[in-house]
C-alpha cells in the first residue's frame, strides 16, 4: 500500500477500500521500521497524524465533499511552522520551540485533509546541499545509506524515496527542493516565486525562498501543488492571480509542438558522464513525444553562483538576527549579572552551526555601511541580467531544460569541509531562484557508472508552471514505458515489511 502513488492512495480512500487511519498507520509503521537508518524525520507526530486521519475518515463517513488528497499522509520540512508541533529548522537555537500558529501552507494542508506525519530533517535554516548541516545529524540517501540525500530538504526527499510518505513539502532557495529530488530519484517542484505563500516559512533568504510540493510522481506533485498554491493576504509577495492549471497539465502530458530549450551553459564540463547520458536520452524521448528540441544560451548564468552567495547570506544575516534568546528558543548564559548582550552572544555561539555562522558573517560584511552598492547592489544587477537571459531564451522556447545537478549523490563527509565544492552542486538550480521562475526535477534514470539517480530539470516562465508539468508528465510516461516500472523499484530494500 505504501508504495502506491498518492493519487492511487486517494482513490483507495475514495472507494472505501482503505481508511486514512490505516494508511497513516502503515506509514507510521514504515517510519518506525526504516527511519533509524534513513533519519528523514526530526519529529514524528503520531497522535496528531492519527487524529487528523480519523477526522478525515469521519468526514468521509458523513458524506462530506473532500479535497482530492484528503486522508493522504505527508512529510513536512521542519522550516514550516505547524501549531504546537516542534519546529527547529534543523537548528539547536530553536530546540524545544512549539509555534503558536500555523503557516499558510500548513493551514491549506489541514483544510484539504492532508495528514501531516511529522517534520523532516534539513540543513540548518535550509543552508546546505547535503543535510549534513543539520544540528541533529545527517539524513541518509535510501539508494545508498553512505551517501547524502541532497539538501537542504534531504529529509523530505529521503522520506519519499524510503516510502515513509507519499507526499512531502520542501522549500527551495537555491535548489533545496530540486537537488534532493534529483539525488533520491523523486520529483520536486519549486513553483514561481509568490505562487505559494511564505507566511510561516522561517525565512532564510526572503527574495529567493519558495515552498513547493515533492512526491514520487509528476501527477502527485501537481495535486499537492494545487493544494498549497494561491494568493495569501498575509504574504505581500504572494501573487494575486489564478493558480496555474498544473493538475490538468500533468494529466494530459502533451508536449506536441512545444519547444524545449536546452541550456548550452548547463551541460558539458563538470557534469558527470552518466548524468549527461541520461539527460541526452531524455531529450530524445521528448523529441519522440512530439516536442521540438532547440538550443538556448544564457551567458550570464556563470555569475549566478557568485551573486547568489552575496544575496542569500546578506538576507540571512538580517533574517536570523531575531534569534537572540529574548523571546523563544534556546537561551544560554542567563546567570545572575549576565548582560542581555552576553546572553545573546553566548546563545548565538552555541545555537548556530558553522555554515550558518559563515553565512551570517559573509552577509553582515556584505551589508556593512559603504559596501552595499559593491556587493548586494551588484549582485542584484546580476540578478536582472539572469532574468533577461531567461526572458530572451523563453522568447525562443516554451520551457528550458538541463540536468538538475552536475553529479549524482556524493558520499556523506566528502564535501563537508569544502564549502565551495558543496556550493557548486547548485550551479544549475540557482538561476531559477534568482529569476523567480518555476523549476521541476524529475528522475530520468540512474547513472551507469554508479547506479545512482539522475535528475532532469525543467524550467518554466513566471506563472506558467503548468508547462513544466506537461513536459515532466510526458517524459515520465516515456521513461516508465521504457523501464516497465518506476525508477524507485530499482532502489535497494531497506528491510521492513514493504
Amino acid at each position: 500500500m505504501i508504495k502506491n502513488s498518492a493519487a492511487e492512495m486517494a482513490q483507495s480512500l475514495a472507494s472505501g477500500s482503505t481508511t486514512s487511519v490505516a494508511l497513516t498507520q502503515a506509514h507510521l509503521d514504515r517510519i518506525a521500521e526504516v527511519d533509524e537508518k534513513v533519519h528523514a524525520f526530526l519529529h514524528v507526530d503520531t497522535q496528531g497524524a492519527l487524529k487528523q486521519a480519523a477526522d478525515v475518515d469521519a468526514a468521509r463517513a458523513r458524506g462530506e465533499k473532500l479535497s482530492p488528497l484528503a486522508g493522504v499522509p505527508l512529510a513536512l520540512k521542519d522550516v514550516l511552522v505547524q501549531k504546537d508541533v516542534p519546529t527547529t529548522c534543523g537548528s539547536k537555537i530553536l530546540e524545544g520551540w512549539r509555534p503558536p500558529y500555523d503557516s499558510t501552507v500548513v493551514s491549506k494542508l489541514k483544510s484539504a485533509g492532508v495528514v501531516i506525519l511529522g517534520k523532516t530533517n534539513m540543513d540548518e535554516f535550509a543552508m546546505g546541499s547535503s543535510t549534513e548541516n543539520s544540528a541533529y545529524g545527517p539524513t541518509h540517501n535510501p539508494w545508498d545509506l553512505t551517501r547524502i540525500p541532497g539538501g537542504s530538504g534531504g529529509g523530505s526527499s529521503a522520506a519519499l524515496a524510503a516510502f515513509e510518505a507519499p507526499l512531502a513539502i520542501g522549500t527551495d532557495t537555491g535548489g533545496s527542493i530540486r537537488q534532493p529530488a534529483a539525488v533520491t530519484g523523486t520529483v520536486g517542484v519549486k513553483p514561481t516565486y509568490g505562487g505559494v505563500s511564505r507566511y510561516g516559512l522561517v525565512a532564510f533568504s526572503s527574495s529567493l525562498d519558495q515552498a513547493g510540493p515533492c512526491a514520487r510522481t509528476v501527477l502527485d506533485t501537481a495535486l499537492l501543488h494545487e493544494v498549497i498554491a494561491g494568493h495569501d493576504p498575509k504574504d505581500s509577495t504572494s501573487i494575486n492571480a489564478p493558480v496555474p492549471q498544473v493538475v490538468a497539465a500533468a494529466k494530459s502530458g502533451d508536449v506536441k509542438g512545444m519547444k524545449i530549450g536546452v541550456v548550452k551553459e548547463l551541460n558539458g564540463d563538470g557534469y558527470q558522464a552518466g548524468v549527461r547520458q541520461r539527460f541526452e536520452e531524455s531529450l530524445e524521448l521528448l523529441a519522440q513525444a512530439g516536442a521540438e528540441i532547440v538550443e538556448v544560451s544564457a551567458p550570464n548564468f556563470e555569475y549566478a553562483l557568485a551573486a547568489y552567495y552575496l544575496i542569500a547570506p546578506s538576507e540571512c544575516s538580517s533574517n536570523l538576527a531575531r534569534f537572540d534568546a529574548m523571546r523563544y528558543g534556546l537561551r544560554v548564559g542567563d546567570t545572575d549579572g549576565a548582560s542581555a548582550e552576553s546572553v545573546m552572544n553566548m546563545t548565538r555561539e552555541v545555537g548556530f552551526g558553522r555554515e550558518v555562522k559563515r553565512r551570517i558573517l559573509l552577509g553582515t560584511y556584505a551589508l556593512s555601511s559603504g559596501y552595499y552598492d559593491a556587493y548586494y547592489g551588484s549582485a542584484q544587477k546580476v540578478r536582472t541580467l539572469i532574468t533577461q537571459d531567461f526572458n530572451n531564451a523563453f522568447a525562443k522556447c516554451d520551457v528550458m531544460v538541463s540536468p538538475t545537478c552536475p553529479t549524482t549523490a556524493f558520499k556523506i563527509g566528502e564535501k563537508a569541509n569544502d564549502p565551495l565544492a558543496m556550493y557548486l552542486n547548485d550551479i544549475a538550480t540557482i538561476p531559477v531562484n534568482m529569476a523567480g521562475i518555476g523549476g521541476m526535477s524529475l528522475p530520468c534514470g540512474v547513472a551507469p557508472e554508479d547506479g545512482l539517480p539522475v535528475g532532469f530539470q525543467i524550467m518554466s516562465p513566471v506563472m506558467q508552471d503548468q508547462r513544466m508539468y506537461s513536459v515532466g508528465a510526458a517524459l515520465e510516461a516515456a521513461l516508465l514505458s521504457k523501464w516497465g516500472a518506476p525508477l524507485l523499484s530499482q532502489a535497494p530494500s531497506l528491510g521492513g515489511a514493504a
Partner: protein
Amino acid sequence: MSALTYEDVISKYEPVLGLEVHVELNTNSKMFCGCSTIFGAEPNTQTCPVCLALPGALPVVNEKAIESTILIGLALNCSIAPFSRFARKNYFYPDMPKNFQISQYDEPICVNGYVDVEIDTDEGTQSFRIEIERVHMEEDTGKSLHVGGSTGRIHGADYSLLDYNRAGIPLVEIVTKIVPGTGKYAPEVAKAYVAELRDILRALGVSDVKMEQGSLRCDANVSLRLIGSDVLGTRSETKNVNSLRSVERAVRGEMIRHAERLNKGEKVKKLFKKLVTFKKTPA
C-alpha cells in the same frame, strides 16, 4: 557656573537647526499586523506572531497608515513618490523583536516640502520657512523598563522588562532640511515649528499628537557657526524631547553649551548624542 549669556552666543555665532519629528499615527491597528494600538493596555497583550517577530511571520503594510502619511506629505507641501520602498535598519536591541526596524531609506513616500511658521519678534510678527526634506514611515519599537541600577539604562540594571505592545505601531518621521537664518529666534522657531506640525497633524486627524504620551516626539539638532561663515559646525542631537517648552529649552541650552566649548577652543564632539530626559513640564 557659566558666565556666557545667550546674548553673548548670538552676537558671535549663528545657530543652524535640524529637526526630526516622530509621530505615532492613530490607526486602529499596527503598521504591519492587525494588533490593536490602544495606549495603556496591560503589557504584552497587544501582540501577535508578526509584531513579536516569531519565526516565519511576515509583515503586511497598513493601508490606512500609508494614506495618513500621504495626507501629511500633502499638508507639508511635499511631492508624493509614486513608488516608495521599505528598508531594514539592522541593529540589536532587546526591545526590537526582529533586530531590524522596518523603515524607509532611499525611497521615502514624501519629499521636498515646506511649512511656514510665524513668531513674535522685536520687529513684529515674522514668518520663517522651514523646508522639509522627507516624510517617511517606520515602525515603533517595544518599550524597555530597566529595573535596578542608578542610570535607568540597560547597563547596570538588575533586570529588564519588555513590553511589546508598542512594537510595530506606525510612526511617521518628518525631517527638515537644515534651517539656517533664524538667528536669535532659533529656539522660538523650533518650538513654533513643532507646534505648527502638531496643529496640522491634529487637523488632519492622523495622530493623537500627545507629546507627554510620546505620540509626538522631537529630536532637535543644533550646530553653531561663526556669523558670516558658510561652513556648518558639528551638531548635537537632543533626542525624544517631549514638550514644546522643552524644544525651546533644548535648543537654547545646546546653543550655550556649544558656544562655551567653541570659545575654549574645544570641539563639539562629532555626532555627540545627548540623551536628555526632560522632566514633564507644561508646554
